């Protein structure tokens, strides 16, 4: 008899437990929105940088000339980036041409100086620059990077197309997330025989530019 009693009791208890769990499963209010997982394809990535630059390049033996060009960069990591450059300038006159008067060493076409290069850059000193507004007294902080860069490419000058090595450094100021200003100083080296024997031509570029991240 007590056996039966216990059996009946446990039966009712089990039913009660089932009812309770059924109530737990069904919430009083069904939420309208399901929680979403983070979908990274919706997040904008900005690793590419496209820019223009202008400045001065010293073309050995042919004066210093105005230089302009375009630049594309891809940021591999926070420190390393790859960069491709295209530049245009025009060589001036050699001292000999100036002194001798009516002599022309190169045709106008051959005086065109064009280069391309691909380079590896390293942001060695990231930092901040502070600018105080002249009237309001507000101080603005800008992120900056001092970087080293080196690469190689080709230079087309004086009817000759030469393998060219490039090394230099630059300073980048990020105006905001997608706009940056650059000042760079680069040395371009190549061997050329335009004035007779082959020699290494050193061309110094000092340029400034504007770039957009996308």
């Amino acid at each position, binding site marked *: 008899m007590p056996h039966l009693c216990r059996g009946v009791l446990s039966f009712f208890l089990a039913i009660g437990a089932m009812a309770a769990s059924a109530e737990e499963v069904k919430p009083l209010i069904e939420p309208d929105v399901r*929680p*979403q*997982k*983070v*979908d*990274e*394809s*919706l*997040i*904008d*990535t*900005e*690793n*590419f940088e496209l820019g223009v630059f202008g400045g001065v390049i010293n073309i050995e033996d042919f004066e210093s000339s105005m230089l302009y060009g375009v630049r594309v960069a891809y*940021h*591999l*990591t*926070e*420190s390393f980036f*790859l960069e491709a450059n295209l530049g245009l300038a025009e060589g001036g006159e050699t001292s000999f041409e100036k002194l001798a008067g009516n002599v022309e060493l190169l045709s106008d076409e*051959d005086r065109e100086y064009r280069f391309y290069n*691909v380079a590896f850059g390293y*942001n060695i*000193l*990231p*930092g*901040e620059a502070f600018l105080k507004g002249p009237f309001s007294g507000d101080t603005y*902080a800008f*992120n900056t*990077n001092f970087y080293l860069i080196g690469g*190689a*490419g*080709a230079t087309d000058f*004086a*009817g*000759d*197309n*030469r*393998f060219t090595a490039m090394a230099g450094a630059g300073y980048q100021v*990020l105006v905001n*997330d*997608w706009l940056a200003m650059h000042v760079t100083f680069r040395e371009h080296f190549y*061997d050329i*025989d*335009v004035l007779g024997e*082959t020699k290494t031509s050193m061309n110094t570029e000092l340029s400034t530019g504007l770039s*957009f*991240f*996308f």
Partner: protein
Amino acid sequence: MIKLLQRSICLLLFSMLSLEAAADDWWKFWVADSNTQQVRVAEPFIDFRSGPAQGFPVIHTSEKGEWLTLLKRKTDWMKVSDAKGRLGWVSIDDLLLTEDATGDTVSITEPRFDDFRTRRWESGLQMGEFDSTAVNSGYLGYWMTANLSAELSVSQILGNSSEIQMLSAALVHQPFPQWRFSPFFRIGGGQIKIKPKATLLSVDNSINSMAHAGIGMRCYVSDRFFVRLEVNDYKVFTNEESNEEATEWKLGLSVFF
């Protein structure tokens, strides 16, 4: 306006990179602003830096339980804003320790070695020597199977007396695609154009066909990058009595996508 331009450029690039993916996802670029991606800090705290690099100063710290909105990504950093609108850059490594709205740990995929094996496209820039003369070259390859790919490459060889331009197509076979250091064999042909220097007597450019065979090695570095080294032997078919031969080696960095 700039935002719009940026987005159109992004859209253009993406559609160029993968037409299939773009067909599914193109509309997402236009709703990205309305769709807020949020995560909750699960560690005791998370650092905000002023810029996307370890070298920038920590400007704010959010504590456990705070919700952050993901805004944009640069390399391995994410720009976030907290509930009060404070902005900063958080590292992806830290973000991987946060939770999303479902309560799960956030998953952000990084291109890894596994993708290197299953990639379809690769492209790279290389430099080296062609018959002891400097060579610059670029290529684009498409993997038809895990072992076999077709490649198109252009090269510029800058010599003392001439400039040589080459355009070639090649078939590449890699017997061990699962290896981190994966050797490959290539065979192909194309056109070679020799332009004598203008400073010398004006000689006509000559265009000849050529064939080449070579061996090489791909070494996976990280992310979506690998280093590629190759040695090729060229045979240039000329009108002279004998054909010309040249050996070339080059080394470069490539990406896969």
